[in-house]
């Protein structure tokens, strides 16, 4: 079936979204054209504004509209304490916990040699400078528990130790409120290995 060129262009454009194939793209395009033109225009404006206005924070690499993101610009936070995470979504999750008063360093990925992602590709040259300048005194490693996440954590650990910074890794294991029988074997093995003495 032949679409009019503008409709076809819109469908093609939607397929750039993750997990969206030709069929879903078509559904989205028809939906906006038929039922929600206003929403479509608002989406177009937001996309345009974000794509040209959002950059990376110069200190932590998270998304930012100014040279510093809101967390890095917040003077009440402890800027010598840095939690290293893989993605902006991780920052959001930790912020929602409400427990953390330091800042972040966002790798936007993890070390993955086969994909061509080495230390510089995830901004570790910049983190190295911050460690070297004494700007960072303590590092909390919150990278993923995958093999690549562990390799990334080890690399940053070495970097931090070489610069005299303190390092810790967030605890990993059984989720709160989770029942043991539903926890997968890998997680359980890790939780057992990382068991801690019970304090009275």
């Amino acid at each position, binding site marked *: 079936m032949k679409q009019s060129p503008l409709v076809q262009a819109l469908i093609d454009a939607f397929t750039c979204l993750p997990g969206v194939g030709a069929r879903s793209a078509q559904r989205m395009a028809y939906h906006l054209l038929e039922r929600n033109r206003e929403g479509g225009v608002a989406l177009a404006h937001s996309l345009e504004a974000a794509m040209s206005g959002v950059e990376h924070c110069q200190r932590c690499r998270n998304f930012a509209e100014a040279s510093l993101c809101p967390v890095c610009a917040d003077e009440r936070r402890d800027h010598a304490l840095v939690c290293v995470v893989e993605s902006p979504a991780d920052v959001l999750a930790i912020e929602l916990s409400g427990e953390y008063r330091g800042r972040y360093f966002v790798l936007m990925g993890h070390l993955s*040699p086969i994909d061509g992602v080495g230390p510089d590709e995830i901004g570790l040259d910049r983190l190295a400078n911050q460690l070297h300048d004494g700007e960072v005194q303590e590092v909390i490693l919150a990278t993923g528990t995958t*093999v690549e996440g*562990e390799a990334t954590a080890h690399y940053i650990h070495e970097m931090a130790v070489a610069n005299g910074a303190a390092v810790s890794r967030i605890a990993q294991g059984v989720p709160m409120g989770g029942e043991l029988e539903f926890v997968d074997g890998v997680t359980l093995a890790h939780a057992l290995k990382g068991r801690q003495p019970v304090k009275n």
Partner: protein
Amino acid sequence: MTGRCGRWAMGMSDARQGDRAWVLHRRPYRNTSLIVEFLTASGGRLAAVARSGRRQPHLQPFRPLTVFVSGRAELRSLKNAEPEGAAIPLRGEALYCGLYLNELLVRMLHRDDPQPGLAGCYEEALQRLADDDWPRDLVLRQFEQSLLQMLGYGLSLEHDVHGQPLQPGQDYRLVPDEGLVAAANGRYAGRDLLALAAGDWQQADIRRLARDLMREALAPHLGDRPLISRQLFRQGAAHKQAGDES
């Protein structure tokens, strides 16, 4: 083939017949799926789509699996992957070494080219990397040498390309994929090559020579891009040095 791999059936596996396998690499595919590169005992390197693969935490490198794969080459799908015991505990530099082996294999192996014995060698190398009694560079060099051998690029350390025994007083250079050639001011001293052939791993300079020699022998098969995992070692060593100095 004897040993560990012997009990795994040869020939291309179908969905009913499991194959011992190791994850070399994963990349996201669609919403929750993965395309996984495996090194399998009987099928060599192969790629398969793992539906909902991101929810299967055992689809990780360095973990022995039995995989059940169906479909033709280029469009295989993973029916099931069963863990066969715990992941090999690689930590720190040993983990970099494991990533190096995986990068090497993905660069060097063609898909669906069975390499009998290679998965066994790989497993042995991983076990040794996890064992602090094995010098890691020795494990890597032995694996590199076996890999070249299996791919048909074996390198003799006892004879030159003309079949003449190496002479201690002679210098040699490497002609990749062919072998060592006597050359005045060649990069490798016959004496050192013979020491290496005799398994003399005590001296640091012999180990360096082994590293350089294997690197030169591997280079033509790795393409233009540098191996990223090598950067990890180099920079890791630099961090350590900086730490020792401070």
